[in-house]
Structure formats: structure tokens, C-alpha cells
């Protein structure tokens, strides 16, 4: 199905969430580049796509959305019969899936994204990394970040699995 557009940036983790989902579902789409360095996401016309000024925004024909987790869920449901199954059958399995998504959103993301912003994104925007913030989060994510995952064999195996999928390989470079 054509007519899918993602307005975002290839380095943005939230944009990547959507791109990975589209790859999993074998869907054609167009990535419309939003130049974050120029603050394009904080100005019109982007703000009319997402009044909160964040990438990604999304279009499927004339249907418009923002918020990466709402977009990916829409893709998973609307294109349930295409590509890989991203949903679990049955309401109890769906509930457990929903719980996993909430854990990612509230327990993991708020902690992981801060050092990510400090160490990677600030560099990208030409800002100075605040080492105090990186150090503060060290007890949870360590330096290098990888160590915390490597110390946990099940987590390590899971990370290896999800990052080796063709969709991840394509999007994460």
C-alpha cells in the first residue's frame, strides 16, 4: 500500500521505532526528512502535523498521526495481515504485550533517553555534553552503556535477538 509518509529524522530513536515497524510489516513508505538541526520540528508547517513539535509525524493517505507508539500500534493493527505479526492473539496475551509496552515507556525510556541525549544527540546538535547528568545515570546504565546489558545473560540474549532482525539491521545501520 502506498501513501505512507513518515516525517522525521533517521537518527531520531522515536522515528526509528516507526521505521522498524514499517520494515517488519514489509510496507512501502517515504521518509520525509525534518532537519532537526535547523529547528524545523519547532516551526510551521511541521507544528500543524504535531503541535508538540516532536518527530515523527505520520500520514497514511489522508490519515494523520503523531506519537511513535500510537503510530506503531496503528501500523500493527491496520496491517495485521502483512509482514511479521507484531501483536499477540487473545486479550490476555495482548494485555501482557500492553504491559511490556508500558514498562518500556515509563521505566526504561525515561532513564535510557537522558544519557542517550547527553552523549549522542547533544554532540549531533553541537551542544556540550553535561557530564554530571551522564555520571548521575551511571549507576543504571554504566559507561560504556553496553556493560549493563552484558552482565545480564537473558537481557543480553534478547538484545542480540532484536538487533539482529532484518528490520533492525536495516534501520539501525
Amino acid at each position, binding site marked *: 500500500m502506498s501513501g505512507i509518509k513518515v516525517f522525521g529524522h533517521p537518527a531520531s530513536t522515536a522515528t526509528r521505532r516507526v521505521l522498524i515497524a514499517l520494515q517488519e510489516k514489509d510496507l512501502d513508505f517515504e521518509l520525509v526528512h525534518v532537519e532537526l538541526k535547523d529547528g524545523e520540528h519547532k516551526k510551521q508547517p511541521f507544528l500543524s502535523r504535531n503541535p508538540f513539535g516532536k518527530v515523527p509525524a505520520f500520514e497514511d493517505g489522508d490519515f494523520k498521526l503523531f506519537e511513535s507508539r500510537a503510530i506503531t500500534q*496503528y501500523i500493527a493493527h*491496520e496491517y495485521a495481515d502483512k509482514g511479521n505479526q507484531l501483536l499477540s492473539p487473545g486479550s490476555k496475551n495482548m494485555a501482557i504485550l500492553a504491559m511490556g509496552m508500558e514498562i518500556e515507556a515509563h521505566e526504561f525510556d525515561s532513564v535510557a533517553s537522558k544519557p542517550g541525549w547527553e552523549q549522542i544527540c547533544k554532540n549531533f546538535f553541537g551542544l556540550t555534553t553535561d557530564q554530571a547528568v551522564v555520571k548521575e545515570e551511571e549507576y543504571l546504565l554504566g559507561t560504556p552503556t553496553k556493560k549493563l546489558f552484558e552482565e545480564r545473560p537473558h537481557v543480553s540474549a534478547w538484545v542480540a535477538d532484536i538487533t539482529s532482525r532484518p528490520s533492525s539491521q536495516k534501520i539501525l545501520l
Partner: protein
Amino acid sequence: MKVYGDGMSACVARVLLCLHEKETEFELVPVDLFACHHKLPSFLSMNPFGQVPVLQDEDLTLFESRAITAYIAEKHKDKGTDLTRHADAKEAAIVKLWSEVESHHFNPAISAVIHHLIVVPLQGKTPDAAIVEENLEKLGKVLDVYEEKLGKTKYLAGDSYTLADLYHVPYTYYFMKTGHAGLVNDRPNVKAWWEDLCSRPAFLKVSPGLTVAPATN
């Protein structure tokens, strides 16, 4: 269905609102938060993050209030209020969109304000005024977006009440008891929306349990 928690917890109240909207029987199993019973091994075996609420439905144990409410709304989609607009994929996606907005834009700001104005004084400590100020500003910007949206639709995701509106209720109820209710009252569309949410029978059943009072400021 059993809900483990206390009606004074905003996250527990989300689940209770949903159960009442869906006209579903349940049992509220008290968890003594002040005695930190939610950090005991017996509780951690249900939710390793040590937070209320937890739902038990037969052999299913769930935590995270938004996952619990989504499950209840789906299981009982054919009775009570239509909280998810499940019959239409696009309407359902818009409900999810505004639920994500609540989760990622509204909640972090308002819960920081509530934490400092209500919880911190209960712990005998002094609120951090800079954090309160910073988050009031963020909250104001979110409410500016809501003010515009609610000028176009009666509720956040469209013209009917959904989970996207419900998720806002408990923290907003506490917020309106602080000295900063003006952030809502000074925005006519947001104010009208809030007053509508407070008129719902489910709200009238759950709000008496929201008993924590802010320090006068």
C-alpha cells in the same frame, strides 16, 4: 477481578474509573502504601517495580495502570462506555495518540508538581520550588495545545469520552486542590472539559477515595 492498591493513589484511581465506566464488578484489596507494603517480596512477586495498582483476573496478573485499563476496556468492550472506539481503526488510533500525549507530555509535568506540592511535604521535606516552577511552565504549554484541540472537539480524541480523557482525571483532581488551579480555569475550553469529566457518575464514585491533601501554599 481484584485490584491491589489504595483509592488515594492516582494510578489506582485510573483503574477504578475504568472499572466503573465499564460497569464491571471488582474487589479492591488494600495495600498499605505508608507502611511500604508495595515494596515487600509478596507484592514484588506481582509487580517487580513495586508499584500500585496490580490487577488479577483469574490466572492473569497485570501491572501498569494504562495496560490494565486497556485490558479492561477491551475485555468489556461491549458494555458500558466505549472507551477505545474499537470499531474504527482510525478512531482507535486517535484515542491511542492522545493517550500517548497524556503519558509523555502531560503526566511527567503534572506528576512532578503533585509530587513536590503533596508527597514531599508528607515526607516531612521541603518542596523544590524550581522544579515546581519548571513543570508548571511545561504543563501550561501542554494545556495551550489542549485548549486549541478542545475548541475543535468536545473531548481530546473526538466527540466522545475515551481512555485518553480518563487518564488525566486523578492527577488533575489533585492539581485543582493546589494553588495553581488557574492553569485550568484560565483556559475556557480546558475548564469546560474538566468540569464535564467531573460530572460523570464514575468520577463521583472514585473521587471520594482521592483523599490526599496538598500543603497550603
